């Protein structure tokens, strides 16, 4: 008997490997942002698989809630804590990777050996009947959630509220000392100037040149050198600073050529 190739099978063999690829990416990418994107990719693929398994409601929940909300929350926090430095992939704990691999393979082996074998040759019943009972997947699920599982549902709502309150409390920063007044701040500044010679005034502006005036442009001191304080340290660290002296030099040369031309014209 020739096995019937269904759409679900085709979907599985496409989305399954892609999901695995995403998982591998999660643990292999050095940059956390890439890892997060791989994860999102896996989730989308899982959503596709859900769809092929007649779970339409979960497909959309997976995409909207998981991929859309939770993963974006991850990305947001990643931005918050700094995405600039990629993780070092040098393992500090001796033997951790080998042991982790052994554990991972062991778990996989156990599940395959313990459960997988038992499922071989099981004919899936399919969800047509179940979905039809309440005229649709969503209707069926809602009947279960607000029927048989209503208490669990209420508990999860309580759980969500608690989580929200908890996140608020964790996010709140308790002030341990009183807020410094203007007077105190100026005293601190003057003291720093007296002790370490830190300039008490405000920092210099970024450079305003003929061609550039972005915050990535350093300001020039009267002698033409760059003032280090005029650009953000973050930008300096990223290396996106515009080479202001080179730019001013080009401008100066241009002005020079214009002036010489004007002088020649004046002689004529």
């Amino acid at each position, binding site marked *: 008997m020739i096995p019937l190739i269904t759409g679900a099978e085709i979907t599985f063999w496409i989305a399954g490997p892609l999901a695995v690829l995403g998982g591998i990416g999660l643990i292999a990418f050095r940059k956390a942002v890439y890892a997060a994107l791989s994860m999102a990719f896996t989730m989308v693929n899982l959503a596709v698989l859900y769809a092929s398994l007649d779970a339409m409601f979960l497909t959309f929940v997976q995409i909207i809630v998981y991929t859309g909300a939770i993963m974006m929350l991850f990305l947001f926090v990643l931005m918050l804590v700094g995405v600039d430095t990629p993780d070092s992939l040098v393992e500090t704990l001796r033997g951790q990777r080998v042991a982790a691999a052994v554990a991972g393979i062991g778990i996989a082996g156990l599940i395959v050996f313990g*459960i997988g074998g038992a499922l071989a040759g099981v004919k899936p019943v399919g969800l047509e009947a179940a979905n039809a009972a309440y005229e649709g997947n969503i209707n069926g699920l809602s009947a279960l959630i607000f029927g048989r599982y209503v208490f669990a549902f209420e508990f999860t709502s309580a759980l969500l509220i608690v989580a929200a309150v908890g996140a608020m409390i964790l996010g709140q920063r308790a002030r341990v000392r009183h807020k410094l007044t203007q007077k105190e701040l100026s005293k601190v500044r003057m003291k720093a100037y007296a002790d370490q010679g830190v300039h008490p005034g405000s920092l210099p502006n970024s450079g305003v040149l003929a061609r550039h005036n972005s915050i990535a442009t350093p300001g020039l001191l009267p002698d033409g050198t760059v003032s280090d304080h005029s650009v953000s340290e973050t930008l300096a660290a990223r290396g996106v600073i515009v080479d202001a002296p080179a730019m001013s030099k080009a401008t100066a040369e241009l002005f020079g050529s214009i002036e010489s031309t004007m002088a020649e014209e004046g002689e004529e």
Partner: protein
Amino acid sequence: MTPEYYVYLATILFALGTVGVMVRRNALVAFMSVELMLNAANLAMVAFSQARGGLDGQVATFFVMVVAAAEVVIGLSIIIVIYRTRRSTSMDAASLLKL
């Protein structure tokens, strides 16, 4: 399509998640690995739901997603608090759980 293959796929994803927790030092990535493990379990449940012809598996998956959302909120808050005090999200840095 037997549930066997879905379970194998779920197993692979779960194992990848486990390894991720153990191998990655960035707390956020490790946390995402945990999410991957949850997703693997979800996939298995959805597959079983389809195999058995009942919607209970899907309901369970739904609840897992809700709990995961709550968990992520709290987990990320904790990571942020740690980051605030230690200026790092490395799991190795938070190694005070020893004598």
